[in-house]
């Protein structure tokens, strides 16, 4: 088995209007096949990507937000949301999808993948990651 690296995907843009958010999610899903240590952080307008009950009809783009619910199946279960970005947009964790995963080591108990973190903690996450991909 090759070395497992710590990957951090940084999502900073709104879900629609550009293709960055969807591309990021696809890269995460493809990368998940390689058994790496994957974390996702959502900050700035990127927090909108996790908004509940999205309707993308007016944008002419497919609403891909249901796909975030599949991340747990792909063993991607470290989702970090930056507190300052949420607050600046008048949002709380209750406005976001409650992403979960099933813990194989704990009799498949359903656990939350969502973590609220401060800007300082995001900086620490970036520091301790070996590969940081920004979208």
């Amino acid at each position, binding site marked *: 088995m090759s070395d497992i690296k710590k990957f951090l995907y940084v999502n900073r843009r709104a879900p629609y209007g550009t293709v960055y958010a969807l591309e990021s999610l*696809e890269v995460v*899903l*493809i990368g*998940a*096949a390689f058994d790496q240590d994957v974390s996702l952080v959502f900050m700035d307008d990127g927090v909108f990507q996790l908004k509940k009950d999205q309707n993308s009809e007016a944008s002419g783009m*497919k*609403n*891909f937000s*249901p*796909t975030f*619910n*599949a991340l747990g*199946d*792909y063993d991607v279960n470290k989702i970090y949301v930056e507190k300052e970005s949420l607050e600046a947009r008048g949002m709380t964790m209750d406005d976001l999808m409650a992403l979960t995963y099933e813990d194989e080591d704990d009799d498949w108990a359903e656990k939350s993948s969502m973590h609220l973190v401060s800007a300082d903690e995001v900086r620490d996450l970036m520091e301790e990651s070996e590969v940081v991909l920004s979208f």
Partner: protein
Amino acid sequence: MPSMDVNGSEVEVDEEGYLADINDWNREIATALAETEEVELTDSHWEVIDFLREYYDEYQIAPAVRVLTKAIGKKLGKDKGNSKYLYELFPYGPAKQACKIGGLPKPTGCI
């Protein structure tokens, strides 16, 4: 865009033979797609295809093989949740062939 003939009506497909519009799909089309893949559909095949369509409906993606085997095992029983069983049904790749027959796009990350 290329098309295929299903009992006298034209159905649009892409260059690789995947259905252009997933809403066009029905069981007749699935049977025709299965013929192009040289797969004879049994109840066991349908079980996997129906599962994939439900998965796509919920998550808007076709799952990777690893995810598919795990999920099938959970839903249809451990004896079916392994790649040997799925490869017996779909010899050229369960995710790829079952998605094609199920009228879904090629799975993300499928090469």
